[in-house]
């Protein structure tokens, strides 16, 4: 059985699942809109946790939060379930497919067979849509892939019950109740306000302060851990920023696209200028990644090169501080 579901590639998985599921249910909403209303943008240094033997930084909110906030703000209801028993998880999935209902799933990446081997790490906050089943094969719309894919019963079971940090536990979710019309205007304002609050939060590891916190860590790494480890850490920062969920630069561009789209809906020209400013900040994030890559490309590097990328991060933090203060005012 195959549901008539339109697969559309997006930059980030959770945005994509929400945008594609909304479109299927007759409410076309763009990826940037989902990301902005769901307050997806974030910066947070996560203490204690190590990812690939390096410190963890997230550039987005916790998995599932974008959809949760988006749903609440536009007035739709979502059904969410986690399971202890894989058999129950499978039964619930099959039930929905039998009712012609495509569903979102949270999965681990390590056993996603259609991913290139190089990308298969123990990362558990990936999202995809299942839109059908043919014998023992599930039809998969993975939003970061150009085309649809498929997974066998066994393969899907594995990724749904991947273990480690953020274990998905068979997490399944789908919208169940829709208003007549989505209240985008209020939702946009709530989304923006929330992001401004997060990014300007008076917590040392969060938002703009978090960026400065990491800049200071980078300065200490070569002395504290030696060049090899410092470079590994720096490489991981760039990977978390640009790869595992299009983090730093990529997310800034999505946010800028959201502001541009919002300026029309809210009839607010200030957001056009702010969108341009965010694009410039996105470019700065990419410059940072480029310079960081020059350090970890060679296995040896001078102390002042760490200093210079740390200074770049400080500069980004200052720019974002000014930016989010302006943004907060612009929608008042």
């Amino acid at each position, binding site marked *: 059985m195959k549901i008539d579901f339109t697969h559309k*590639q*997006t*930059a980030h998985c959770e945005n994509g699942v929400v945008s594609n599921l909304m479109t299927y249910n007759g409410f076309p909403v763009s990826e*940037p809109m989902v990301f902005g209303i769901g307050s997806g943008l974030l910066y947070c240094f996560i203490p204690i946790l*190590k990812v*690939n*033997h390096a410190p963890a930084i997230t550039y987005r909110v916790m998995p599932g939060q974008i959809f949760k906030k988006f749903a609440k703000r536009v007035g739709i209801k979502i059904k969410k379930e986690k399971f202890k028993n894989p058999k129950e998880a499978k039964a619930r999935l099959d039930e929905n497919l039998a009712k012609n209902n495509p569903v979102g799933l949270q999965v681990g990446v*390590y056993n996603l067979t*259609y*991913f*290139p*081997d*190089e*990308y*298969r*790490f*123990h990362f558990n906050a990936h999202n995809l849509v299942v839109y059908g089943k043919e014998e023992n094969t599930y039809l998969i719309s993975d939003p*970061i*892939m*150009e*085309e649809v894919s498929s997974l066998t019963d066994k393969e899907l079971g594995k990724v749904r019950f991947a*273990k*480690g*940090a953020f*274990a998905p536990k068979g997490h399944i979710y789908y919208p169940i109740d829709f208003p007549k019309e989505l209240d985008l205007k209020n939702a946009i304002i709530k989304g923006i306000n929330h992001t401004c609050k997060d990014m300007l939060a008076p917590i040392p590891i969060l938002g703009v302060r978090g960026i400065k916190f990491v800049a200071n860590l980078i300065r200490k790494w070569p002395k504290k851990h030696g060049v090899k480890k410092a*470079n*590994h850490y720096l*490489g*991981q920062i*760039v*990977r978390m920023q*640009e*790869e595992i969920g*299009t983090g730093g*630069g*990529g997310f800034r*561009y*999505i946010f*800028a*696209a959201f502001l*541009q*789209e919002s300026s029309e809906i809210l009839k607010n020209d200030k957001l056009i200028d702010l*969108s*341009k400013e965010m*694009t410039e900040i*996105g*470019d700065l994030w*990419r410059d940072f*990644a*480029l310079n*960081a*890559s020059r350090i*970890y*490309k060679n296995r040896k590097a001078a102390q002042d090169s760490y200093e210079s990328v740390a200074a770049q991060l400080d500069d980004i933090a200052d720019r974002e501080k000014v930016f989010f203060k302006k943004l907060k005012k612009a929608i008042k």
Partner: protein
Amino acid sequence: MKKDEVPQDRSSLETAKFKELCYAIDKDGNYTTAKSTGWSPKTIALDNAIRDINERVEKAKQRVFANETSPIEYYMELHKMDLSILASYVGLWGWRVKRHFKPSVFKKLSNKILKKYAVVFEISVSELQQIKD
């Protein structure tokens, strides 16, 4: 980032024949999307991470042969895991898994425990006990 600046570097995406989607502005300053084949700062970071893992695997293997650790640590590295990920897959406390790295402890492990590891690594118990050079 302008649309014509969207990076088209070589990367491992090529082998899977897929491109990733990026947001960028067109010549009128409006946001649009464009596909990217990859970006070298990312590719270098990924290549380094993979080289790092391969080094860890090789080191673990040599330590197994030198009787300094058990094959469990080798297979853990081979599957890109760390202690906490492996512990959650086998459903044991981290300190127990760590103890099983000791060759003397590993030799005395019951078949039931060995089987747990073998299932996670998708190998037989005998493959778990004897790694190949």
